[in-house]
């Protein structure tokens, strides 16, 4: 990032949320790079940027699409790069229909299920390769590189043929859906009407500067500045970098926001090159680690998917993960899976019992946290463990979270202090409103004090996949325990209680490898766990020796390893995550500080920093190149490519895995080695990013009849009402847009900041930010109180009237935005308390990654404090009645054209498939989509 010539920060408030990461932007700016901040609010990031471009929250795809259109129609794309490294030339299936043809829907949509059949999006195959319709997909983000900016974990693409279980991200792990080693039709001249390139051109043709003005509220002048700056700073000599965070992910179309930026960056040739790429800014110490080794329902460690119902044998399972003949390293998923099973069940996992594959539970639907909360409300969940998290404040629709917990039999909260999730039964908002009575709540609550980061040893994985070991500084005080200690102990006791059990269902617990060396307090040794994650040779001459790389993993039970991508962190029995050679003694990539997965590679896809012949694109931007003399790749970083694969060497169609890569397939984790402009698979809501309005938006979608994303996941319930959209009746009841965000001074739901006086005093009270125009219109007094009402809740906040909030003109009408930080919660224990902005949010999810839409919603704002008790509920109900809300409001999948005119109803998928646009595999790249609240 420090090498970039232009940095566009969009959907992120980097200076506020990642101040220390921002040092690299500061350096780039000092070198002369342009920094542009695109955001609804003028934030501290805007204050130090060259220019702030205010944008209506949730309209980012219009802007990015218009930039794509600008680049394409003005011939500003990086031709050599695009032709060689992307799927621009690939030809798409003739059945494919674009949103331009179907007024906001792609071909393949089923209005009954709200899901797409992805078949018509596939690449067109060459005649002789008739092995099926299985089109390529792959994933990963060719995200940028250069130290510390890639977010490599790849992503979430779904298997096209089966979208019935949209279990969110990582269904297919980093490898994406399996594909045979494919050969697809392509047209290097890019002239064929069904080439990805031509489809792209048509798709974005109506995304014009004027559309940006009308939809985003961005002036044509600002757009020109942005377009000019980006294109002037891209190409051989220069690179532009995008940085985003949850300002993009927390939308019903969040994953597509990122795709749109990836397309732009590929067209400009900014991927895989120093100072280019897309940088995901993640919010939490080990958010990356907790997806790598996931405490997520749909993944096993290393992005292996959880088995799903019907996958009765290991073979079924592995077939769903990868094809042995696909390109890249995912071809060896069998070795990774069997090593994992050996690590978990040891000798109980043998070839004859499918390596204990049957011990794994199966999924048949999504079991994300929001679905779980609804199960709680249905009394289906007895016990709930919450560790280091404060859903009563930090999760969307806080009221539903708290009411759900009131249905539990028992709740275990593990944290440093008495967070609202531990005390809602006593002083939560529902106690105040009379909805709950403490004496009636049956839930048993265990509050267990947790150990802090210095009272335990272990690794965090930071946003660029770097594992860093923390040494233990001191022992936890009092009853405090690490999670490691607690869950180890819990497992031990559960196992001992079941020791006599003959029930088959208890076998997985009893056969579990659960012996870890402990210290005198019974605390297990985290290094032993790390060693298990790394893996070991079980048999053979090297038996007992730690694996040095995942390439050593075997599918024959001779190796064990808990997370293949982390294999190598404990190579030679040395904890490489604890490597600490000072940064100033090393080069910019600092390979001897910590350990990055995979294989301590700091930068991904750096092959793209050289041209197809292997020469650097320019002297100024040289990074990795082909050394003719030594016949190998070399440069400033470890090449992320088979080191001896010469440029121009052809792909071996029969070889799978790494051996199948051609000399100019830089995106090595993708199934076809190319950067994807068009995603034939993997994205369940469309192969190309398309602008839809948010679940709640007072604005009519200016591009299509279809108002919201047709594939979004909705929960039409009386306790999850949505505001009317666009031209619907009652839209004026909730006329403003609110957006939630985080401040530098606090940490998410406040569990790690509102109990600290030094941080609490810096931002002591809940406030809302409004423009002077809105304040004048509503009679809001500076620093007085205001009440903000959404269809779910009403909260109060102090008013900051500031020109940092702009009233935007969208579609000729003023649109007021209300900014709400979400750190505060109602309770009695913290230094500072206040109403929780997240209570306002409803639950509507992105179908790709199941992240909720929390960056934008509809609300009303009025002066004064909110009422208390039953009056509060009456106020909310009064608004709901006035707006005529029902569970169906804004939840129709396909927008009724009657409400907005234009094309006809549910565009029956698959019916309009005649016109032929032969498909070709294209490769999108989507950087890490799962992200947390504000990252």
């Amino acid at each position, binding site marked *: 990032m420090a090498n970039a*010539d232009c940095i566009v920060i969009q959907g992120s408030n980097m*200076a*506020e949320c990642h*101040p*220390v990461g*921002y*040092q690299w932007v*500061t*350096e780039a*700016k*000092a*070198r*002369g*790079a342009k920094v542009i901040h695109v955001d609804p609010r*003028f934030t*501290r*990031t*805007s*204050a*130090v940027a*060259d*220019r*702030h471009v205010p944008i209506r929250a949730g309209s980012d795809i219009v802007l990015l699409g218009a930039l794509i259109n600008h680049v394409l129609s003005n011939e500003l794309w990086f031709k050599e790069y695009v032709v060689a490294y992307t799927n621009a030339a690939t030809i798409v299936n003739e059945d494919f229909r674009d949103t331009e043809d179907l007024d906001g829907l792609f071909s393949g949509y089923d209005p009954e299920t709200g899901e797409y059949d992805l078949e018509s999006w596939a690449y067109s195959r060459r005649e002789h390769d008739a092995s099926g319709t299985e089109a390529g997909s792959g994933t990963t983000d060719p995200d940028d590189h250069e130290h510390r900016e890639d977010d490599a974990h790849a992503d979430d693409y779904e298997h096209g043929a089966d979208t019935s279980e949209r279990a969110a991200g990582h269904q297919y792990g980093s490898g994406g859906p399996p594909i045979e080693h494919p050969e697809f039709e392509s047209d290097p001249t890019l002239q064929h009407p069904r080439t990805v390139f031509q489809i792209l051109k048509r798709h974005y043709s109506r995304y014009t500067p004027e559309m940006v003005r009308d939809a985003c509220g961005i002036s044509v002048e600002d757009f020109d*500045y942005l377009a000019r700056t980006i294109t002037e700073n891209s190409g051989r000599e220069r690179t532009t970098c995008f940085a985003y965070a949850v300002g993009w992910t927390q939308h019903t179309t969040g994953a597509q926001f990122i795709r749109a930026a990836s397309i732009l960056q590929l067209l400009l040739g900014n991927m895989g090159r120093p100072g280019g790429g897309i940088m995901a800014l993640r919010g939490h110490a080990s958010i990356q680690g907790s997806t790598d080794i996931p405490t997520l329902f749909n993944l096993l460690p290393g992005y292996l998917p959880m088995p799903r119902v019907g996958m009765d044998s290991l073979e079924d399972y592995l077939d769903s993960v990868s094809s042995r003949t696909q390109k890249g390293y995912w071809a060896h998923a069998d070795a990774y899976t069997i090593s994992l099973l050996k690590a978990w069940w040891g000798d109980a996992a043998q070839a004859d019992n499918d390596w204990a594959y049957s011990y794994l539970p199966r999924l048949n639907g999504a079991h994300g946290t929001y679905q779980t909360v609804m199960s709680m409300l249905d009394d289906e969940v007895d016990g709930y463990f919450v560790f280091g998290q404060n859903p009563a404040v930090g999760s969307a629709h806080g009221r539903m979270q708290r009411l759900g917990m009131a249905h539990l039999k028992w709740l275990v909260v593990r944290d440093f202090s008495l967070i609202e999730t531990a005390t809602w039964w006593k002083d939560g908002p529902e106690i105040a409103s009379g909805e709950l009575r403490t004496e009636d709540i049956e839930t048993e609550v265990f509050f267990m004090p947790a150990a802090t980061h210095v009272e335990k040893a272990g690794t965090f994985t930071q946003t660029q996949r770097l594992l860093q070991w923390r040494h233990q500084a001191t022992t936890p*005080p*009092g009853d*405090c325990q690490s999670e490691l200690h607690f869950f180890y102990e819990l497992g031990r006791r559960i196992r001992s209680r079941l020791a006599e059990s003959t029930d088959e269902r208890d076998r997985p617990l009893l056969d579990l490898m659960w012996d870890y060396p402990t210290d005198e307090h019974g605390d297990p040794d985290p290094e032993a766990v790390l060693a298990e994650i790394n893996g070991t040779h079980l048999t053979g001459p090297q038996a007992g020796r730690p694996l040095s790389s995942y390439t050593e993993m075997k599918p024959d039970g001779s190796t064990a390893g808990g997370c293949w991508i982390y294999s190598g962190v404990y190579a030679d029995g040395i904890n490489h995550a604890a490597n600490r050679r000072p940064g100033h003694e090393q080069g910019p990539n600092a390979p001897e500080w910590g350990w990055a997965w995979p294989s301590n590679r700091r930068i991904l896809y750096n092959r793209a920093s050289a041209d197809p012949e292997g020469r650097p694109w320019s002297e100024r931007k040289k990074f990795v190149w082909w050394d003719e003399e030594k016949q190998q790749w070399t440069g400033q970083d470890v090449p992320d490519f088979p080191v001896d694969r010469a440029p121009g060497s052809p792909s071996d169609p029969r070889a799978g895995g790494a051996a199948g890569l051609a000399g100019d397939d830089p995106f090595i984790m993708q199934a076809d080695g190319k950067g994807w402009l068009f995603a034939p698979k993997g994205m369940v809501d469309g192969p190309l990013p398309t602008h839809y309005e948010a679940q709640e938006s007072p604005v009519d979608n200016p591009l299509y009849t279809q108002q919201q994303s047709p594939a979004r996941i909705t929960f039409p319930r009386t306790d999850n009402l949505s505001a009317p959209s666009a031209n619907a009746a009652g839209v004026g009841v909730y006329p403003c847009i609110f957006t939630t965000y985080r*401040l*530098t*001074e606090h940490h998410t739901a406040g569990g790690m900041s509102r109990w600290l*006086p*030094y*941080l*609490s*005093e*810096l*931002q*002591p*009270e809940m*406030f809302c930010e409004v423009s002077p125009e809105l304040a004048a219109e509503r009679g809001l007094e*500076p*620093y007085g109180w205001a009440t903000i009402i959404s269809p779910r809740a009403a909260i109060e906040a*102090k008013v*900051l009237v*500031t*020109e*940092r909030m702009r009233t935007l003109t969208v579609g000729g009408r003023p649109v007021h935005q209300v900014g709400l930080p979400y750190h505060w919660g109602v309770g009695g224990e913290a*230094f*500072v308390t206040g109403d929780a902005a997240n209570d306002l949010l409803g639950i509507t999810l992105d179908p790709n990654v199941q992240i909720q839409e929390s960056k934008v919603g509809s609300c009303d704002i009025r002066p004064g404090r909110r009422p208390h008790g039953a009056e509060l509920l009456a106020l909310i109900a009064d608004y709901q009645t006035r707006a005529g809300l029902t569970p169906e409001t804004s939840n129709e999948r396909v927008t009724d054209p009657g409400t907005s005119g234009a094309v006809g109803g549910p565009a029956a998928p698959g019916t309009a498939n005649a016109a032929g646009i032969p498909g070709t595999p294209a490769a999108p790249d989507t950087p890490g989509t799962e992200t947390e609240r504000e990252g």
Partner: protein
Amino acid sequence: MRQLTEAPDHIAHHEHPRKGFFTDTSICIGCKACEVACKEWNRNPHDSAFELLESSYDNTGSLGADTWRHVAFVEQSGQQIEQARESGRALVSLGMPGIGPPASRPSSAAPGIVPSDTASSDTTPPDTPEFRWLMSSDVCKHCTNAGCLDVCPTGALFRTEFGTVVVQDDVCNGCGTCVAGCPFGVIERRSDGIVAPKTERDFTPGEQAATRNVGVAQKCTLCYDRMVDDQTPACAQACPTTSIKYGDREEMVATARQRVAELQTQGMSEARLYGANDFDGVGGTGSVFLLLDEPEVYGLPPDPRVPTADLPQMFKRAGIAAAGMLAATAVAFVAGGRR
């Protein structure tokens, strides 16, 4: 009467070079890490009734006994930006010392600022004409002629071997004279603190430590205790963007001059330095600032003057007055005894 103020060269009374800060507000992101790092290191009590102070994102208000680094937030309209540019241009036209870019840019200077390799000739002013949000981390100036130090009756305040001004907590009796003596409103006597201590225990989870140094004048020590061990002050070490730089004062001033010249070349005529002039009313400050508007916008005095500079004259006037009193008494006895 001899001159009572210190000359800049008196300060180097030890072998150590004088140390100081250069706070470059043009790259401050207002994160307040400096405030927290300072409080954390110095174990200062928090300084707030936990209420919004009605001043943008600033909720600690000003420097004081408990807050030794303070980040100011100022929201400005286009008209105010234009005025700032105007006043900056006026400064340049005055022909002040050290005007214009240094003839050749010393490559050693400016830690954290890499010489530009791209923006060679871009002299158009940055485009944020409609609005801006200024952030600036204020701190004790560690003046060459320190008012607080001069008026301290007990010797609690002293000039360290690094040329900084530090309170000795164990000596100060809290007379408060230094509070009035500071032209920048930095030093303050610590009151009882806001949270009553539960116990005397320190660094213990779940326990509130006692507030230290109550009743004693308190201010930034430039982390004297760290400095004696050759460590960087807490705020400068924490600062994510190197808006706060720490080092030999001479080097800081050079860096500041280079940076301001750079910004002016880029068309930011509003950039100016504060405290880099050894001929000003306090003999130059140990903490130098790069500001983007007039000092009073940030709560800094526009023309501070150490009161000690006028002390000889005050003594003279007091002497005359005292003599007058003697004379009046004499007259009284002469007049009163006449009858």
